[in-house]
């Protein structure tokens, strides 16, 4: 080992570890200020510039949220939606990975089914909701199925893309080391396509959520979608915004959790 080589590497590494981008240091402060300004303008506008009947106001929304929280209403509906989304996500993601990996093994199969899967993917998933409600009733099932289908396609396409993008040189290198098909699958294909699969998760999660909520809005007696819809039915604008806000908080939380998991899995990058 030549000494300058090592030193150069270490310095480069330290720069990555300890380097603080000067410009981004106050970004959280900027974000906070933006939020406060936005809320203040909204609060002022409601009652002065526009009728709060249409726009509600941050204070009214906070009041409604507090009321819902105290009565346990919010948590009950939120947990229903969460259950639908999570179950649908797990099922959709699992099937997406399995099918994507299986189809990725064989170029002929991949090319044969490609136009059909793409056509199915092109159908707005929401358009399937009435069908699922017809099949499965108004319980949790149609929401889970819709969430699962929304997640499935995104994970499927990403997994397939990941498998097909694996550097053939890595596979060749493994083969000369005497790797079996199974070795290559486990040691190269799956780890190499993990970033893609994760991208599928990240894209799929909000869609799964949308699927569940949309189905709730169409036919349901529980869930955040139902809560939002029924507030709108009573011309309770604050209720609608409270429902939307709850949705936003949940999706951001889920995305953040996925992001943390991703950073932990891809420490090597």
């Amino acid at each position, binding site marked *: *080992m*030549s000494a300058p*080589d090592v030193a*150069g*590497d270490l310095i480069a*590494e330290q720069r990555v570890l300890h380097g603080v981008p000067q410009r981004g240091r106050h970004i959280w402060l900027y974000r906070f200020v933006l939020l406060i300004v936005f809320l203040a303008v909204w609060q002022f506008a409601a009652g002065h510039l526009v009728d709060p009947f249409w726009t509600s106001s941050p204070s009214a929304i906070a009041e409604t949220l507090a009321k819902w929280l105290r009565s346990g209403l919010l948590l009950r509906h939120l947990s229903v939606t969460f259950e639908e989304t999570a179950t649908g996500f797990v099922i959709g993601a699992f099937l997406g990975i399995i099918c994507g990996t299986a189809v990725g093994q064989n170029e002929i199969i991949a090319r044969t089914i490609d136009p059909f899967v793409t056509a199915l993917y092109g159908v707005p998933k929401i358009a399937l909701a009435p069908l699922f409600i017809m099949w499965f009733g108004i319980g949790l099932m149609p929401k889970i199925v819709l969430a699962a289908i929304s997640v499935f396609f995104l994970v499927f396409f990403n997994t397939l893309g990941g498998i097909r993008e694996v*550097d053939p*040189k*890595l596979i*060749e*290198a*493994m*083969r*000369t*080391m*005497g*790797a*079996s098909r199974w*070795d290559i699958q486990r*040691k*190269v294909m799956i*780890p*190499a396509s*993990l970033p893609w699969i994760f991208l599928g998760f990240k894209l799929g999660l909000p869609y799964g959520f949308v699927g569940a909520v949309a189905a709730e809005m169409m036919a349901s007696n529980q869930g955040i979608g139902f809560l939002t819809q029924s507030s709108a039915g009573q011309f309770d604008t604050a209720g609608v915004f409270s429902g939307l806000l709850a949705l936003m908080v949940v999706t951001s939380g889920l995305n953040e959790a996925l992001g943390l998991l991703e950073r932990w899995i*891809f420490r*090597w*990058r």
Partner: protein
Amino acid sequence: MRLAKRTENNPVRAEMSGSPAMISLSDVCKSFVAHGDRVTVLENLSLSVAKGEFLAIVGPSGSGKSTLLNIIAGIEPPSSGTIHYDGKPMRGVSTHVGYLTQHDSLLPWRTVAENIAVPLEIRHVLRHESQAQVSAIVRTVGLSGFERHHPRQLSGGMRKRVMLARTLVYDPETILMDEPFGPLDAQLKTVLQGELLRLWSNSRKTIVFVTHDIVEAITLADRVVVLSSRPGRIKLIEHISLDRPRDVHGVRFLPAFEDHYRRLWDSIEVDVRREASR
């Protein structure tokens, strides 16, 4: 070590006397179809590599050097002709051969130690044995202290060492190397050449070493094979008469080195000039 210096011009078959052949190719042709045209990469190539021999292959770019290695490794089948490995006809990918390819084939998500352990995992070597073997080889290639680094954190030269370690760790009988020191700076290249020669003289593996660097070929090899530009044919086989062990720094100042260099350059020059003027 051979006393007699032999230069065979346009040989159909060249073998080292004494040792049995480890790899023998006879009348190997390789062609493929690209954009509707049939391209012949290798033509009527016959060559034997003796057990324990260090053979270097030089030639202009596009002369099929890498293809030749792929054929010996069993990754690509020849279009015609036969290959025998250790007396047996080759079928599929050879597992007796360690292949150090030109491109980076480390798994980016594994650390240095985990990358080196891959061939041992494939052979189901027990974990504690594998760890011992890995740390031994890490010391050999001078990567101590970097076991837990990921490839991304290493320089090009260090990644090459990791690949070399990964090839050596499972102790293959034969090692194929495709311009392994190509992108490295001259100093580091010399250091690694020295390490390679030391490893080779301890283990006496069979090595087939592709390079575009004539100096490197003479420094390292027992014999240097010159391939012509496409379609690749054997133009010259030069037996290197330099004594071993060789000093990788000093060997190039020997008078014999100059003779070898001149003959190899004369042989390769026409093709290189044609390449350059294209």
